[in-house]
């Protein structure tokens, strides 16, 4: 069995990003920076109605707009619109304004249809059917074990709560999109994607091309959290426009587009009943959950569906449990995989219920978790975190904080069942006689530091410095790599780089006779290679990575009980991900996960208007994300477990944040806010300060 070195110079230490300078100087070319020769702007016409029957689309007037070179239909001359913002057609032209003018010129004959925008309304039998002929809300199938009714009778304390989470929209810093050039020689797409291979396969499939005719390049991209795996409607449209215009087309979504049609986290409405024995042992659990994935979970290749089901009772083993859940269709953009699909809502609901039960039992909520969480790593993390956080000193009974501005603390746990590696990952390295070495992997760096991880491992194993390693990723011409999702990237590429390095050293030994080419012997060995560089191919190896990953987080908040504003004062994350490769980028990823979780806890929410069926906040003015002024001190403790090999961390970093913050708020004010985001309006209402509505 191969094994990672135990004495390390770079692995588990801090290495700044090897592409940091390129990024901050603007030299790094993101998908949206690509300017292929003769490129055109591309833009999409979207439905103005949440539901409609389109009987005719006339593109002719668009083609007459000065500067417009192509116009194509998304589906056909006739189509049924099922959500506001659905793609209808697209145009390409020499300026953004020409495209905007052309989109307005397109003539559509349409008959608006009845629609339903909200989950509660969609459940009603009288609601318009999103998919005619099938119910918006199919009868859920219960999952049951033990004897729930009997078990509840044995409980010393039982709570019933209702916990809900909104639809969270995918809003990476760089929107979705591509520049596509389709010529007789084939198709090249510069894509803002998490999966160059899945985009290639998607484009090839949709356009009926051989995979070998499609090349996808992602040198740099501005973030992806589960929605950027497939070619997407926008990728296919860009390709069709390119073919018709005979020019490269850059079609990056606007922020408005981004908020309508390219994926979101399904909502959840969780009715939870839970009971425990007097010592806190959970005995009975019952949950009914529904949520909406819009018109349906949109499995856009690679990233999974992002459906409305959530894992309950999440981290806890309860002998007697019954869970019923179902998706509710509404006329709105579909869900997609979103950083730990299903887990943040499950964590929020379950961890809220745990704290509510702790109150009823008169127990410290941390003790209740230690009593019921079967995972030994999290047990350790809770204890470590509690010590560091000062849990015992800080914990007070809910609502006992004095004064107008009340403080509170809370905690929550995360699990992520995946996180292991993709066994098909491959890569290669080319070693030149001058000692330079270039790694090529068909993976992409979505901002997590993938390039740097490769350089760190290679430097460690070859006895070089990370700066001496050249890393090329993001090209389907390189040996195939994994999609960057599910916390699988690091455990996929790390063993692969290990294999490449091992083979490189073996080959150097064979070819040069120098028994150990590492470190100070490196250049001497390379000199003896001969005229041509050597290329070594490697692949993922067993025994160097594993899963799952997890973690716990602690939150400290202040709540102004007169304005309802929540200020997060401190977040502490204690996370495990096996062998730490690069501490710096790992901490950065946890920081990012916590900040994203804060957005989920306090600010983010897609607001659907039930009268017009539109998304009311398709912008950063009212789809609110945390800003730097909202972000507290974040402390990250990493539990390094080299014996487990490499494990991914992307998902668990964001899972428990909202639950921890919600529990801290409840601890501060003594009342549970069961609905995310926790806004001033909800806090003032929960404190009984809001007067009755004027009819």
């Amino acid at each position, binding site marked *: 069995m191969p094994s990672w070195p135990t004495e390390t110079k770079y692995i588990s230490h801090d290495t700044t990003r090897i592409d940091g300078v390129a990024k901050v100087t603007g030299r790094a070319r993101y998908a949206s920076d690509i300017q292929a020769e003769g490129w055109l702007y591309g833009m999409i016409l979207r439905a103005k109605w949440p539901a409609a029957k389109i009987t005719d689309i006339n593109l002719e007037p668009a083609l007459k707009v000065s500067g417009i070179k192509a116009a194509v239909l998304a589906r056909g001359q006739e189509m049924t619109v099922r959500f506001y913002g659905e793609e209808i057609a697209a145009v390409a032209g020499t300026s953004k304004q020409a495209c905007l003018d052309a989109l307005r010129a397109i003539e559509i004959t349409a008959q608006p249809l009845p629609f339903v925008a909200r989950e509660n309304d969609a459940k009603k039998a009288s609601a318009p059917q999103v998919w005619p002929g099938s119910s918006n809300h199919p009868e859920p199938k219960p999952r049951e074990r033990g004897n729930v009714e009997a078990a509840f009778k044995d409980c010393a304390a039982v709570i019933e709560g209702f916990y809900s989470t909104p639809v969270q929209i995918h809003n990476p810093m760089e929107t979705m999109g591509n520049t596509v050039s389709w010529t007789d020689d084939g198709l090249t797409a510069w894509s803002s994607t998490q999966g160059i291979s899945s985009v290639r396969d998607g484009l090839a499939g949709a356009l009926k091309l051989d995979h070998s005719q499609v090349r996808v390049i992602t040198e740099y991209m501005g973030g992806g959290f589960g929605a950027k795996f497939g070619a997407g409607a926008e990728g296919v449209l860009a390709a069709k426009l390119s073919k018709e215009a005979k020019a490269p087309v850059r079609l990056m979504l606007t922020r408005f587009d981004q908020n309508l049609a390219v994926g979101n986290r399904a909502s959840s409405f969780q009715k939870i009943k839970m009971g425990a024995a007097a010592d806190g042992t959970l005995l009975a659990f019952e949950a009914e959950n529904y949520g909406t994935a819009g018109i349906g979970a949109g499995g856009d290749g690679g990233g999974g569906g992002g459906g409305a089901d959530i894992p309950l009772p999440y981290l806890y083993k309860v002998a007697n449990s019954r869970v019923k859940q179902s998706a509710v269709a509404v006329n709105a953009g579909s869900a997609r995989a979103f950083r730990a699909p299903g887990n943040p809502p499950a964590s929020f609901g379950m961890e809220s219920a745990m704290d509510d039960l702790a109150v009823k039992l008169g127990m410290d909520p941390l003790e209740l978790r230690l009593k019921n969480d079967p995972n030994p790593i999290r047990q350790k993390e809770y204890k470590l975190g509690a010590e560091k956080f000062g849990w015992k000193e800080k914990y007070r009974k809910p609502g006992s904080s004095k004064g107008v501005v009340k403080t509170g603390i809370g905690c929550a746990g995360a699990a992520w069942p995946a996180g292991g590696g993709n066994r098909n990952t491959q890569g290669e390295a080319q070693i030149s006689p001058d000692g330079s070495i270039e790694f090529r992997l068909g993976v992409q760096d979505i901002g997590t530091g993938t390039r740097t991880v490769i350089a760190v491992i290679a430097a460690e194993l070859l006895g070089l410095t990370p700066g001496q390693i050249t890393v090329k990723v993001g090209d389907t011409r390189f040996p195939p790599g994994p999609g960057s999702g599910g916390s699988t990237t690091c455990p996929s590429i790390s063993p692969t780089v290990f294999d490449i390095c091992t083979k490189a050293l073996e080959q150097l030994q064979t070819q040069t006779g120098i028994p150990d080419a590492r470190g100070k012997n490196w250049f001497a060995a390379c000199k003896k290679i001969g005229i041509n560089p050597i290329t070594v191919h490697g692949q993922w190896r067993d025994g160097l990575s594993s899963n799952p990953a997890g973690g716990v987080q602690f939150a400290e908040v202040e709540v102004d009980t007169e304005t309802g*504003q929540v200020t997060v004062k401190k977040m502490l994350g204690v996370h495990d991900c096996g062998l730490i490769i690069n501490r710096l980028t790992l901490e950065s990823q946890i920081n990012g996960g916590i900040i994203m979780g804060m957005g989920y806890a306090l600010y983010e929410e897609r607001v659907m208007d039930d009268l017009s069926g539109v998304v009311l906040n398709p912008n950063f*003015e009212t789809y*609110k994300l945390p*800003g730097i*002024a*909202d972000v507290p001190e974040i402390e990250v403790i990493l539990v390094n477990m080299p014996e487990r090999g490499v494990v991914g961390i992307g998902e668990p970093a964001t899972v428990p944040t909202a639950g921890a913050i919600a529990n801290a708020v409840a601890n501060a004010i003594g009342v549970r806010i069961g609905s995310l985001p926790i806004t001033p*309006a909800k806090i003032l209402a929960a404190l009984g300060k809001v*007067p*009755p509505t004027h009819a």
Partner: protein
Amino acid sequence: MKAFQYATAHSTSSARELVGEKGAYLAGGNDLLGLLKEYLVSPETLVNIKSLPGLNKIERGEKFWTIGALVTVAQIENNAEIKKVFPGLHEAATEIASQQIRNVATVGGNLAQHSRCWYFRHRDVKCLKKNGDLCYARNSENRYHSLFTGNDCISPVVSSLATIFTALDATAIILRDGNELRWSMAELYADAWSQRLAHNSLQPGDLILRVEIPLARSRSVFLQASEKHAFDWALVSCAAAAEIENGKLKSPRVALGSISNVPHQVAAANEFLNGKVLDDAIATQAAAMILQGAKPLEFNGYKVPLAETLIRRALLKLKGDA
């Protein structure tokens, strides 16, 4: 946006001439460009007024200060004298948007900005304020909307400067066809109270030249409550200003933003406070007077206690207690 002519004016008279009846003045452009891009307005001409002489100055006078309409919010924020003389104005400036926006946003533009109602701003919704038949907000998502209105539109005024200027009893000087009109803040927004399509009383071609702030109130305060801690609109904002003589309030003014389609003030409350020694009970009583008659809708009722809190806190801070 639709194509437009572009011209730069070097005098107020040429600005008026260039803008005609279907043009718009362009200064910081923060509000105007958003309106253009969403096709909410489509002026034939944009008249760049950034080069108009004399309008970008803050001038100290013996009885009042003059702030030119082209003074940026950042200029106000960074002016050390303003921080001393009109602390509430300084506080209001610091709360506005982001640093980047404050660097270019002007006083005139802040006062003249249009509704932020998410129905009004939505490209595919035709609400009352866009000459449609229905106030969607009244019947649907009204969490950010008004508690008071004089017509059937419930989109609130969001100008933070209007709120503090109201409390400071400032006068706006408007150029209308060669004549200078002197308007109180109440007059500047009067049309928004009475007419659903209006968001202020300015007519096409009207140009805000400057604002005069009397030196009658040495104490002033601006408080804002938002969902986020920075770069977020106020859910409610509150300004208060007064003189305190022998411990008693003199000429107090309290004004609120984001709860009415005009800067909300209640004359009776100002009179009630006059001559009073401030304490929590007085402040609470004043707040009740100011909020009397509020008509909360389904989702904006929280603005009532929020406004009550801000009024109380602003008054106590005025006194120096908070």
